[in-house]
């Protein structure tokens, strides 16, 4: 497992580097020149002020989402749980959009966006909790309620957008998930937040392993299940909110990365958690690089200079395909 973790760290690194060189205007040679201290002022600006923070934000947000998904699935003992389908991500988006619409937060005040996204995330999760109740219900029921809550929250977000369309341009990015235009300010806010909550998630590895074994077993082994689950949910919401405020609702990452992480790094959260962080980082970082590359390609083919493919659209498309595979496999396992 250690070797795999190292391997996937290298993958995340490689993906980050790919993000640096995939964009328009500058090729790998020029990027290398800048990184080694040379290059003309424009190239330096593009690489150090635009591409580097953008890649880092993509990696950090991806790691957050991967972790949040794994924590959520373990704590709820539900393979269909993910921040996207438990009301957490749509809630966070609603929070961010509303705060922006009301003028309380915006492009210039990312910290306020984090707070608003957190509040929204908790509200979304709380709404689901009210609907499903405290009783441990079956995964499918929770998933159905989660989809319901998510739909309602997305509807509310659309209403906010219609009522306050002033900042539409900066707001839409939260809906699809985008890494476009992320700068150091975002990274400076994202990394301490992500690092802190990631450490908490790691500290929760043992309780999460027990929660996966079922509440009866966990309690018999000495775990205060209520408290452990609450801590895990807070951690998942905070990680999701951090990612959403940085890159928006990056579709399916939190739902699918945990499946990959458990398959690749085993059922022990001690390795699955860092694994999920690395996988999430690789997926979003990869999608970021791919979207830049696609944008460049489209620009060349269509001659459209300002066209950019949102990263979230890519993760959603790939994720949908993967979800199909996971769903088919879990059906097979049950029969």
């Amino acid at each position: 497992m250690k070797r795999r973790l190292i391997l996937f760290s290298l993958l995340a690194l490689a993906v980050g580097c790919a993000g640096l060189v995939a964009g328009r205007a500058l090729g790998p040679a020029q990027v290398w020149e800048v990184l080694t201290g040379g290059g003309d002022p424009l190239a330096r600006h593009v690489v150090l002020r635009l591409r580097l923070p953008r890649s880092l934000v993509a990696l950090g947000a991806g790691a957050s989402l991967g972790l949040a998904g794994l924590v959520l699935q373990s704590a709820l003992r539900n393979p269909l749980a993910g921040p996207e389908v438990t009301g957490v991500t749509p809630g966070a988006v609603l929070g961010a959009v509303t705060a922006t619409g009301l003028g309380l937060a915006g492009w210039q005040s990312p910290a306020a966006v984090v707070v608003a996204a957190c509040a929204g995330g908790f509200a979304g999760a709380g709404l689901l909790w009210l609907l499903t109740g405290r009783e441990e219900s079956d995964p499918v029921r929770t998933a159905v309620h989660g989809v319901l809550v998510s739909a309602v929250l997305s509807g509310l977000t659309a209403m906010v957008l219609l009522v306050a369309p002033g900042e539409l341009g900066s707001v839409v990015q939260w809906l699809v998930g985008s890494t476009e235009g992320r700068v150091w300010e975002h990274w400076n806010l994202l990394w301490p937040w992500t690092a802190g909550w990631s450490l908490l998630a790691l500290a929760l590895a043992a309780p999460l392993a027990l929660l996966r074994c079922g509440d009866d077993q966990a309690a018999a082994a000495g775990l205060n299940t209520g408290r452990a689950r609450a801590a895990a949910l807070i951690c998942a919401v905070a990680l999701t909110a951090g990612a959403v405020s940085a890159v928006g609702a990056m579709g399916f990452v939190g739902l699918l990365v945990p499946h990959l992480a458990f398959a690749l790094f085993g059922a022990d959260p001690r390795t699955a958690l860092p694994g999920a962080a690395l996988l999430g980082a690789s997926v979003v970082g990869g999608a970021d690089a791919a979207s830049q590359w696609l944008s460049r390609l489209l620009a060349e083919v269509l001659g459209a200079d300002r066209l950019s493919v949102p990263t979230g659209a890519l993760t959603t498309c790939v994720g949908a395909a993967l979800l199909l595979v996971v769903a088919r496999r879990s059906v097979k396992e049950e029969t």
Partner: protein
Amino acid sequence: MIQAERLSFGYPGRTVLDGVDLTVSDGELVALIGLNGCGKSTLLRLCAGLLRPGAGRVLLDGDDLAGLSRRAAARRVALLHQSAPSVPGMTVRQLVRQGRYAVRGPLGMLRDGDDEVCVRAMADVGVGGWADRPVDALSGGERQRVRLALALAQDTRVLLLDEPTTYLDLRYQLEVMRTVVRLRKERGLTVVMVLHDLGHAARFADRIVALREGSVVADGPPDEVVTPGLLAEVLGVAGRVGRDPVGDWPVCYPDHPLEGPNPLRNENHIH
């Protein structure tokens, strides 16, 4: 030593246990029997501190369980539930390791090592050979032994087992029972087990405690307690009781359910 004093427990509109007294001495193997819903599983959970009694208390070597934290209680009492959901991909070693949580705590569990207890627990139930196999891939009997190893990994003096032989083939039932009896002897464990099969109780237990509608109706060694009267009163069946020709323990020959609608029937399983 476990002392349950005038234990009562219930849900709104339903009394599950009504003033139960139970004392289990160190090193004793006690079997709890009774119909479904008579409160035996609830009694076991109260003795593990997993439920808070409505009235009365449970003393563990003189300490009130209600005053112990979940972790402190789990360091002294291990309970094996009747069934547990499967965890996809989890190996035998990983599952058994979960039993160390109470001793090591959330951060201690992050470290490796201190696994002798787990190794011994797996060896004790004969699952050491498949430590790295996923639990999902095992048969029902094997899985039950792995779960027994998890409870043993808690390294407690008291072991509570809730129907450890249900759903198992006879061969595996005997295997689990034999393992428990052997461990009890080797380690001086105090064991309380809910048993569905009166035959196992009569064969292996030092003492049988029979529950009916939340009260103790019989309590004593199998020789004294296993009688046609017990079959009728506790299990609602007519039958005879004989002796094993070789070992001389009591053997039941149940014949037919007693006439009329059974007032004891209660399908509300408490889980």
